[in-house]
Structure formats: C-alpha cells, structure tokens
C-alpha cells in the first residue's frame, strides 16, 4: 500500500509492504524505489480507530517511540524538541489532490479566537487597520499572565468583537482579518 505523508512543506511517499519476513517500507522517490527498510511496528497503548497512542517502531535496527495524537486532519507527534503535524494520503487521495488546483492558503477571512478563557486587558487594533503576520492584536489576561494574541496572517482587520475589560470564554472570536 502506498501512502503520501505531508509534513511541513515536504511530501514523503512511502510504500508499506507486509511480507512473510515482516513489514517493509520503501520510500517512493519519484517512482524510483530505492531502499527497503525492514520495520517492526508495535503499539504500546493505542486506539486503532483514531490512531491515538504510543508506538514503538524499530526501523532498520533503530528504535524509536512516538506518541501519536490525532488532529482534525492527520496526526501530531512530539519527537524530542520537535513537533510534527503530518497528514497521510492514500495514493488515490494524493493523485486527486495533485491534479486539483492548489488553493491559496491565506485567502478569505481569518478569525482569531481566544485560546483560553480570560480577561481582555488591551485591544491594540481597530477595524480598518492593516496588520502584519505576528503583529500583536490584543492582550488577554489568563492564569495570572498577560498573553499576547498575535495575527496569524497579514491582512486588514475587518472586525473587532471585544473591548478592553471584556471577559471571554475560550474559543470566542476576537478579531477578524481579511487577507
């Protein structure tokens, strides 16, 4: 079975083969199938359905353990100081996606939500402002700390739905930005 894994902006093609001698993974390298990596994959604790769990993989003798956390699309894995968000496509999904026109990532309206319940201490932008990605939009006090809420993309502020002093629940829309 062939799978295409999207991670960061890379795409890694892998073929998983179950043989008499065990499982083998072949990287798909532009159709050139090069190495064959024998893998011994085992779940320590896992949920087969969601994929969540702790796994042990021994690939070519090297041993790793990874905790897999399901995301809405794909999986998240924390490995050492890194965190990977990965999305797995079957060959069919991958081919369909490849032919489809690439969607612009940052088009349309982006809503910035409150990451946690808290008190809005300061609002630093107003409707009509142009903001750059990473710019501070407002300050939310929660857990005794002041937390900067940043713009996740550049654009124009179209709506600010809170003001200083507002107590918000987690998930509440705060600012809308039009890219």
């Amino acid at each position, binding site marked *: 079975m062939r799978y295409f894994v999207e991670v*960061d902006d890379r795409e*890694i093609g892998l073929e998983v083969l*179950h043989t008499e001698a065990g499982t083998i993974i072949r990287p798909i390298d532009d159709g050139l199938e090069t190495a064959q990596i024998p893998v011994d994959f085992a*779940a320590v604790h896992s949920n087969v359905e969601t994929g969540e769990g702790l796994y042990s993989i021994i690939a070519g003798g090297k041993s790793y353990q990874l905790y897999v956390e399901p995301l809405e699309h794909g999986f998240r894995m924390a490995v050492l100081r890194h965190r990977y968000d990965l999305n797995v496509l079957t060959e069919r999904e991958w081919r369909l996606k490849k032919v489809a026109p690439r969607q612009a990532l940052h088009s349309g309206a982006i809503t910035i939500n409150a990451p946690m319940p808290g008190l809005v201490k300061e609002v630093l932008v107003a409707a009509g402002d142009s903001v750059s990605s990473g710019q501070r939009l407002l300050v939310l006090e929660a857990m005794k700390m002041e937390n900067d809420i940043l713009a996740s993309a550049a654009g124009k502020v179209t709506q600010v739905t809170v003001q200083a002093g507002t107590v918000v629940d987690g998930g509440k829309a705060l600012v809308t930005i039009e890219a």
Partner: protein
Amino acid sequence: MPKISKILIANRGEIALRLVRACAEVGIQSVAVFSEADRTALHVRAADEAYPVGPSPSRESYLRIDKLLDVAKKSGADAVHPGYGFLAENADFAEAVINAGLTWIGPSPHAMRLLGDKLSARHTVQAAGVPTVPGSDVAVDNHQQALDAAEKIGYPILVKASAGGGGKGMRVVQGRDEMESALRSAQSEAESSFGSGVVYFERYLEQVRHVEIQVLGDNYGNVIHLGERECSIQRRHQKLIEESPSVAVDPALRARMGAVAVAAAKAAGYSSAGTVEFLLDTKGNFYFLEVNTRLQVEHPVTELVTGVDLVLEQIRIASGRPLRIKQNEVQLRGHAIECRIAAEDPFNNFVPSLGTIAAIAEPGGPGVRLDTGIYRGSKVSIYYDPMIAKLIVWAPTRAHAILRMRRALEEFRIVGIQTNIPFHLGVTQSVDFQRGRLDTKFVERMMEGRTRIDDQHTEELEQVASMVSALVVDRKRLAGGALGRANGANGQRPVETSTWRAEGRRQGIR
C-alpha cells in the same frame, strides 16, 4: 521551645505535596487545605488531614487568611508552612499566625517587612555593606525627578515596583524619550498589582547572570549559606531553569558572595530559609537584587548538591532548635539542574494550555527527582500557576547532569495538554548552555533563533514520524479489513486490543 506536632500547609500543588511528604518523613501530622478544584489533588490525598477552604479562585480560598486560621484551629495544628507563592511572603499572614498562638515556619514578620519592600531591602543591606545595583535609593515619583535620577545612574534604566515581584511594574527605559510613559505605566501596573504605586530605579545591567545564594538562619542569630544557584535561564523575569553550582562561581567567589548574603540576612535579623538574589557580571562583580523571604521553587537543586533537606531544617529552626550545620561542613557534591515544567505551548508563544492530563510517563532511574502535583485525570485549570512539575537531576558533573536532564525530559511524557518540555530539550541541546555561557538574555536569544542548537538526526526524525503516521493509517486499514471479514485475515498482523483510552482527551487550546 515550641514543639511542632501538626503543620497546616497553606498551599497547593507540588509544593504542598513536598511539604506533606516532609511531615511524613519526620513524624509530624500534616493538614492540607483545598479549594473546590483541588478536592482530589495529590496533596489532599497524601496528607493526614484535609479541609476545604472555598471556591477555586485563590482569592476565595488559598489567599483567605481567615479560613486558613479557622482550619488551623479546627484541626489543632500548631504550626503553619506557607510554601511559596500565595501568602508565603505576606507578613500580615505571618503575624496573624503568630497572634493565633501558632508557629510560623519562616522568617519573622519584621524581617519579612524589612526585606519584602525592595527599597527598604536595599537600605537594609546597604547599611551592612552589601553592594547593590546602582540605582535611586528613594522612590521616583514624577517625570522631572525621574529624568534627574536616570541621568545620575545612567541609561538603560530599569523601573521597578518597590512592592513588586514576578516582573510586574517593571519597565526598561533606554533613553529620556521613553521615560514619561514607562514611569506612568510602571506606576499604574504596580498600583493595580500590589496596591502600591511606589517605583524606583536601578541601572539595567546587561550581560549579567542571575546568581542567588541560599541562606539558612536560626532564631539565635546564626546564619550560614548553602552555596549558589544560577537562574539565568528566564523568560519575562520568570525562572525556567536553575542549577547549582554556577559555572561562573569558583570557591573564592562563592565564599565572597556567601559572606555578603549572610551579612544581608543578619542585617535583617533573618531566620529560616531565604534567598539573596544577585546579578553577577562578566568581571565577577555582583550586585544585590532582592531577598526572597521564603522557600524557593528551585530549592531542590541546593538540596541535591549539599545533602541538606531545607524543609526539614526550616521545621527544626521554627521549633526553636539552633542550626546543626556549620558553614565549614557545607560541601557541594556534583551538579544539580532543575527544569520548571509548565503547561504552556512552546510552539505557540508559550500560551497556557488547559485541559485534563490523559496520561503521564514519569522519568525515573538514577539521579532524577520529580516534584509534581499532577496525576492521570487531574486538570490544569485557569485558576492556578501553569507550572505543573519540577524535574530535577543530579549527576557527578555538569556535563553528565545536562545529558541526564535531556534523557529525563525525553522520558517525561504528558498527554492531554501541551507543555514546555520541548523548550527545555532545546536548552539542553544548545551549545551555549552546554558550555555554560549563560546570561539573563539567553531565552530571548534562543526564541529569536540566535542560539546554535545541537540537533542531531532532525531529518531522520521527520522520516520516522512519516513512517509511523503511514503505519498508523495502514494499521487501521488492516484492522478494518480484519473486522470486515468474518474470519481473521491471513498474513496480517493481529490487531492489538486497545489498552489505550480515548476518554479524558485534551480540551485545551488549539
């Protein structure tokens, strides 16, 4: 001499548990208190007695002096330990405890007041000949006075709240232009945070290390020091990593700083455990910053290198015993490092991460100490500090301790919330940290990507993560196949019975 046989622990979380354990280890009864959120907390379950003190917000529970004293009375406690945070540095609480006929495990309210206010502390220690950071020795009130004072001290200037702590009411002023607004905002933040808008100036020292001296005094005027802790790894004036000894402190400097710290403590008539904080510059000059009149979060690193149990000594001192350790008996052995594990997402600007702890794998083995109040099923809520664990390691050498910390961080897995463990892993892998090139700007540089991190196998890890994700999908496919057919499929790996629960999944921030 006040005999202590039952201690009320006026705190929660890991420090409350640490104090409950200390009581059990000396045969003293422990009395825990809990807010509504903490009914099944570890410190409650481990204590001999436990009493509710109100709703979850600390203002309505852990900060309620009246309720705490009521529990002390009801339970028959004869002493109170405040831990750190909450009421630990509140002299009024200490006084109320003493007035209720109980023993306060900490310095006298007088010493707490003298050292609690930063300006007053500066004056107290200056009189004892302790070098302080150049600054205004009086409160700075208005703009003109501020400009004059700054001129004399020299820019950059750090505006500090005299009653302050934790970075609040603090502003860096690079030049005259920034003064007016910085002064005003510092004053108002200080006013709203501490009920006092009094601020003063210090020269803002750069390229300095935060080095602090642990002192221990008894009720008879004896004070010793237990060496230093280096706490330069800070973010927004919050310590993240502490170690002892400091690579920047040799025995001669340790003796000098220790003597100064002891003098500062004696000047205030200090008893119990306390910490004298200094800034240490690259030339070996050090400047008094402030005194923390309590047990510190980072006290374990000192315990590990000196072999002295600080809480035990605090209890002995409070019960009127003289210090049993002499200065020349204090010996540092090996090296200890502490990482403060917080429920914060290092991939998202350290935003607090709330939710339920779905699973934990604790680090173990040689030289690892874990102080934590979390457990499977416990919740990280908005009500309390995001620090959920302290991971402390000891090893014969600093190099060994760093690698031990790294493997312990790798072993430590907390499922259900985000933690700053990846940040700590990054620090242990950074070349500057490994070489001991630390200063208080370390984290800032690291977060800006200006630190070289010794990352091995990054690409390999990405490859492995890819393989695992494909195998997880493949496994589900095979399981589906196996389930689809009436009979177990041929040649396929058996599907493990799930021993993992999907319940209690994270709810936190995304």
